[in-house]
């Protein structure tokens, strides 16, 4: 009952005309950048972070959440019509979606993706609504030692468990923690890793790192790649109706629900990641379908399920972000830094101190989902036009915005050079198959982990055993060790 009355108050905030406008701008921008290959929500939110100096927190966060949800919708349009996934989480959608489009069923594929996204996004948002308070109540029992252990667990899962290689994931994480440590240590006032450069005393802005890795890095990668220039990827035209047939509906609704059921819990776990649930959903649908012969040639279940899983897990990621202050994706980490720039710390206290902000944000997600359904179905033709922007102009534009996002906040060429350095690092990380999300997560979460570690050590008067004698902290650390070494041990046991 309490939750519902909070949610009602939230709608009171989210339905204010200005906040509706921010949500609308957010979902529109989000869809556009989701559609454009090479642009993602993490990058876009990073570019817009300086807005936090200008607008109030509720408005900014509604905008950012709209971008986040919108990108998930827009990404599917690209995967279906272009076969170049706009978002890493929509790779699976292109497997069946693009085949459907090639067979003249683009409309049906877009429809099941959009409606599935809506269904899953709404289920996911309901999940946030009702899961947030239990998680908050749980989190209220957490002390600094427990928080530190939770962060360690999350470090391990985002970098070592989800990627293709634990070593490369942890390397990326360590680089992120290193970058996050640059500057004045705010507990002792000592400068760390600044190499005597005055500009580094305030630390490196996460905008510079995110935009460098995602925008400049991607552009460099493609510019140096010969094959990126002679792509004759044709945008497939939507010829059939956007109304799904009766058969399409009956084949779609179960995958939507199953996809949501797979996506939300995985997203909500302190591991995050939207790719794994989409793959899981794809293989589930492939197993359960009555039309196995269609898989690989455009089976609608293979679009409906993964799209739902993708959106539900995107919603799930917001649970640890809001209730624990624990970001488990690059986008969530950048949203967390948006909170930080208002001196707001997401976590259990936030629900008590700023209910109108949290619940307004959650309510705006329901509204955003409705807006997105309208934006992405009847107006799909608009987004197809965006897909036709020639690559030279697209990447020229991306770099102009990258310049604004960095030089535009500090007017410092040092930041511009740092941006380029991050871009070159991003190039090599992409070339040598290192994940980039752990860099951002490490950069944002590293300082928080250190802060909690120090607080815990102060409380325990310097006794390290505090992390092992507290039950919550000890079990979380045990889980982290298991997640790190478990797969390897399991493999050795099976062999031996």
């Amino acid at each position, binding site marked *: 009952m309490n939750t519902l009355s909070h949610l009602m108050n939230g709608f009171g905030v989210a339905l204010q005309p200005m906040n509706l406008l921010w949500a609308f701008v957010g979902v529109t921008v989000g869809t556009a950048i989701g559609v454009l290959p090479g642009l993602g929500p993490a990058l876009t939110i990073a570019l817009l972070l*300086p*807005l936090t*100096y*200008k607008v109030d927190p509720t408005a900014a966060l509604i905008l950012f959440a709209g971008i986040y949800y919108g990108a998930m919708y827009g990404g599917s349009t690209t995967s279906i019509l272009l076969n170049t996934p706009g978002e890493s989480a929509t790779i699976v959608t292109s497997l069946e979606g693009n085949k459907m489009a090639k067979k003249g069923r683009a409309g049906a594929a877009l429809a099941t993706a959009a409606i599935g996204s809506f269904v899953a996004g709404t289920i996911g948002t309901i999940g946030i609504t009702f899961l947030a308070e239990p998680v908050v109540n749980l989190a209220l029992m957490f002390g600094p030692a427990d928080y530190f252990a939770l962060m360690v667990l999350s470090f391990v899962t985002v970098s070592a468990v989800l990627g293709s*290689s634990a*070593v*490369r994931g*942890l*390397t990326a994480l*360590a*680089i992120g*923690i*290193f970058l996050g*440590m640059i500057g004045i*240590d705010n*507990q*002792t006032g*000592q*400068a*760390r*890793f600044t*190499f005597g450069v005055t500009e580094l005393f305030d630390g490196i802005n996460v905008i510079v790192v995110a935009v460098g890795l995602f925008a400049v890095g991607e*552009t460099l990668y*493609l*510019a*140096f*790649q*010969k*094959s*990126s*220039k002679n792509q004759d990827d044709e945008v497939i035209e939507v010829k059939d109706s956007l109304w799904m047939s009766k058969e399409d509906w009956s084949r779609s609704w179960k995958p939507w629900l199953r996809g949501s059921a797979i996506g939300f819990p995985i997203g909500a776990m302190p591991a995050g990641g939207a790719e794994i649930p989409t793959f899981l959903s794809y293989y589930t649908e492939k197993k359960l379908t009555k039309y196995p012969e269609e898989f690989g040639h455009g089976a609608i279940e293979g679009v409906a399920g993964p799209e739902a899983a993708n959106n539900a897990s995107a919603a799930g990621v917001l649970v640890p972000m809001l209730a624990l202050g624990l970001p488990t994706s690059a986008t969530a980490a950048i949203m967390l830094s948006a909170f930080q720039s208002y001196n707001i710390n997401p976590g259990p206290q936030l629900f008590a101190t700023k209910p109108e902000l949290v619940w307004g944000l959650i309510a705006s997600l329901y509204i955003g989902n409705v807006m997105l359904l309208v934006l992405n179905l009847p107006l799909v033709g608009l987004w197809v036009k965006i897909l036709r922007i*020639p*690559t*030279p*102009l697209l*990447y*020229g*534009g991306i*770099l*102009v*915005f990258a*310049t*604004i996002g960095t*030089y*535009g*906040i500090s*007017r410092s*060429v040092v930041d*511009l*050079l740092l941006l*380029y350095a991050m871009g070159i690092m991003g190039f*090599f990380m992409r*070339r*040598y*198959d290192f994940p980039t999300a752990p860099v951002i997560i490490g950069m944002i979460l590293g300082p928080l982990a250190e802060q909690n570690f*120090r607080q815990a*050590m*102060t409380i325990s008067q*310097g006794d390290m055993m505090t992390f092992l004698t507290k039950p919550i902290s000890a079990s979380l650390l045990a889980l982290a060790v298991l997640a790190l070494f478990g797969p390897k041990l399991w*493999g050795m046991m099976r062999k031996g």
Partner: protein
Amino acid sequence: MSGEQAAASAPRGLAKGDLGIAVGVVVVGLIAAWQTTEIPQSAYAAVGPRAFAWATSAMLVVMGLFLVKDAVTGGWSYETDDFGEIDWQGGLWLLGGLAVNAALIDVIGFILSSTLLFLFTARAFGSTQLVRDTVIGFLLAFVAYVGFDRVLGYKIGSGLIERLI
């Protein structure tokens, strides 16, 4: 799993590119360790500013050594290598554009500098339509400047064109 199988069937040997990256990670870790020794100790806190700095440096060095081990036993990047042929011309046009932008932005201002960056980038991606790219680049930089600086309150600074508006 599949990675291990692929590694087993691949010819074992030194992967030069991978080794370069691996050694780079070790070097960054060593630099971090050296910088950690430069952090003044603090007597007031239970955990000083050095503890996490040491831990991070150690993590970088250890991960780097694991990568070195991977690189000398065949490397990893061939598994996912979809890069193909290198386009030096495109890449150098882009690097040139970035350098021009960094060199000129303080002098001629964001709008003109970004127009140049836009032109160089478009050229890097194979466009030869100089007039179209100049017009679009200028308009985009102009609109972006007005939108972000004047409306949204970013501080992009002044320049040759900026002074006139």
